[in-house]
C-alpha cells in the first residue's frame, strides 16, 4: 500500500513539474554583439552565465547589441528579433531578450511566456536603473553581468518559476491558476464522494424514513389541486465593472506574438 501511495505522489509531482522543465538549446549564441562592445572572452563568459540561467530556470535569455534599429521603434525591433530567431523555450516560448541600440542610446527588454509574469513592469524598471550607470559610462560587460545577476535573482524569487505559474499582468496566467485550483478541488470532491460511497457500503443497516414500498398500487388519487400566484419580486444588481485592459503591460508584435517588457535610455 505504501508503494502505491509513493507511486501516486511521484506521478503527481512529475505531472506538475516535468512539463515545464527546460528543453535546452545548444546551437544558439546567447550574446550577439553586432555593435562590437565586448571582447571575445567577455562574450564567452556571458554565454556561460546565460547557459546556467537557462538550465536553472527553464527560460531563454539573449543579449543583443546593435548599432541601429533601422528606423523601427526599439520595442518593435526587439520583438521582431525574438520572433525572427525563434527565441523562447517550451510550448509558451518562455524567454527574455535584452537589446541595446547604440545609435539611439536606448535599451529594451522584451519578455515572452512565463517571463512576462516573472519580469513585470516594476522588475524591468528596477533592472534598468541598476544597469543605466554602467551603460552610461560605457562599461557594457559590467552592465550585462549585472543584468544576468538580476535576471537570476528575480527568477529565483518566483516560487512558481518551475511550475509555469504566472504571477501578474497576464490574464491567461490567472485563468491557469484558477483552472489548476479548480482541478484540485474537483479531484478532491470526486475522491471524497468516492471514499464516502465506499464507507457507506460498509454499513447497510439503515432505518427507513418512509414506506414507499408499501403503497397500494394505483391507490394514489389527487382530488384537488391549485397553484395560486401570490406576488412577484425583482431585484437588480449592477454588473461588476470590467477590469482595465492590460495598461500596456503586454503588447503584440508584427508577427502576432504577445510580448511584455520595457526599456529606457542611457
Amino acid at each position, binding site marked *: *500500500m505504501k508503494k*502505491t*501511495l509513493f507511486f501516486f505522489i511521484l*506521478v*503527481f509531482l512529475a*505531472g*506538475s513539474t516535468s*512539463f515545464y522543465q527546460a528543453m535546452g538549446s545548444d546551437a544558439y549564441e546567447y550574446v550577439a554583439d553586432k555593435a562590437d562592445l565586448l571582447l571575445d572572452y567577455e562574450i564567452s563568459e556571458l554565454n556561460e552565465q546565460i547557459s546556467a540561467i537557462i538550465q536553472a530556470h527553464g527560460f531563454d535569455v539573449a543579449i543583443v547589441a546593435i548599432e541601429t534599429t533601422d528606423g523601427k521603434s526599439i520595442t518593435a525591433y526587439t520583438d521582431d528579433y525574438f520572433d525572427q530567431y525563434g527565441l523562447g523555450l517550451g510550448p*509558451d516560448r518562455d524567454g527574455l531578450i535584452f537589446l541595446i541600440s547604440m545609435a539611439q542610446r536606448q535599451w529594451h527588454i522584451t519578455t515572452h511566456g512565463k517571463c512576462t509574469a516573472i519580469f513585470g513592469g516594476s522588475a524591468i524598471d528596477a533592472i534598468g536603473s541598476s544597469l543605466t550607470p554602467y551603460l552610461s559610462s560605457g562599461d557594457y560587460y559590467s552592465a550585462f553581468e549585472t543584468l544576468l545577476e538580476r535576471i537570476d535573482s528575480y527568477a529565483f524569487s518566483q516560487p512558481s518559476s518551475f511550475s509555469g505559474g504566472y504571477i501578474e499582468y497576464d490574464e*491567461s496566467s490567472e*485563468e*491557469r491558476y484558477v*483552472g*489548476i485550483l479548480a*482541478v*484540485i478541488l*474537483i*479531484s*478532491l470532491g*470526486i*475522491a*471524497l464522494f*468516492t*471514499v464516502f460511497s*465506499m*464507507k457507506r457500503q*460498509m*454499513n*447497510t*443497516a*439503515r*432505518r*427507513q424514513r*418512509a*414506506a*414507499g*414500498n*408499501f*403503497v*397500494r398500487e394505483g*391507490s*394514489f388519487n*389527487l*382530488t*384537488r*389541486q*391549485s*397553484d*395560486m*400566484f*401570490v*406576488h*412577484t*419580486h*425583482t*431585484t*437588480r*444588481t*449592477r*454588473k461588476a465593472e470590467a477590469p482595465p485592459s492590460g495598461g500596456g503591460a503586454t503588447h503584440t508584435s508584427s508577427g502576432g506574438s504577445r510580448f511584455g517588457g520595457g526599456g529606457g535610455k542611457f
Partner: protein
Amino acid sequence: MSVLEYKCPHCGGALVFDSGTQKMLCPFCDSSFDVEALRQHDENLKSLEQENINWDDLEESDWKRGELEDMILFSCSSCGGEIMGDKSTVAKSCPYCGNTAIMTKQVSGVLRPDCIIPFKLDKNAAKKALTGFYNGKPLLPGAFRSQNSIDSITGIYVPFWLFDCDAHAAIQYKATRVHMWSDSKYNYVKTDHYELFREGDISFERVPVDGSAKMDDSYMDAIEPFDYSAAVDFQTAFLSGFVADKYDVDCEQSKPRANDRIKASTEDAFSETVAGYSTCIPQKASISIEDGKIRYALLPVWMLNTKYNGKTYTFAMNGQTGRFIGALPIHWGKFWLYLTGISALLSTLGILVINLMF
C-alpha cells in the same frame, strides 16, 4: 361569506374589491387575486385543519387447541430476551447476548400470529451471502475476511405489526419560479411566489413495524421488503428448526412509528405532483389515517454474529428474499490512501490537460 372578508395570502392584510380589474386588491402589498382563486384558497385552509388518525383495534385470533402446549418459551436470565420454539427446539444459548443460562417456560399471554412467511432460504444460503457481502468492499480490513469466524447463526421469526390504511392528505406548499436576465449594466432576478395546494388519497398495505425491542430497527427496516403473497396462516409446524421472537413492543407502541412512515410516504407522493418550480417547501400538511387495520405476523430473518478482534459484528438476512445487510469494520488507512490516491491521480491528469491548454 362576503368577498370583502378575504385576507391577502401574501401579507395577511384585508383585501378590497377593485371594480376596474374585477379582482381583489391588497392595499398594503399591491398584490391582486381572482375572487375564485381566493374562494378556493379559503376552502384549502379549512381542509388543512382536519386531521384524524383512526386505527381499528387489533383483531385477536384465538389459539387453536393444543397449539400453545406445542410451544415452549426460552427466557434468558442475562438479557431478558424471550424466544419461542416448538417442543423439539433446544436453545443452548440466547441469540441476542449469547448467554447460556436459559430458562424454559410454558408459553402464555401472547397473541396468536395472523400469518407467517415461512423461511425460503436455509442456513447455507445465509453463510454464502455473508461471504458475498465482503466482496466489492475496498475499505474492509484484509484480515477480516480470513480471521473472523461465524459465532452464531440463527433463523428467527421476527414479530412484526403490519399496518393497512387509507391516508387522506391536504398539503400546502410555498413555491417560487426564478427568472434571471441581464442588460448592459444590470443583472436581474425575478422571483414569482406561488402558493400550492394538493389534496387526495393514498392507500398503504402491510407497512411493517418490528415488535421486538431486541431487534435493531435499522436492521429490520433495511431487510425490507418481504413478499407478502407468500404469507400463510400461522401453524406451529413452521417453527420447527427455527425460533420465534416473542414480541415485547405491542401494537399500540408501534403505531407512532407506522404513522411517521405513512405520513412521510404520503408527503413524498404529493411532492412528486409539484413540477416546474425552482423551489417548493411544504408549509402545512394535514394527513388523516382512516380504515386502519393492524395484523400480527412472523417474518423470517437469519441473524448472524461474527467475531473479529474480540468484537461482535451482526448481520441480518431476509429469510425469504435473501437481502443481506450488516455493518463491517473500516480500515482507516485504506480510507486515507484511497482519498489521497484518487485526488492525486485526478489532479495530475487535470493539471496535464490544463498545461496542454494554456
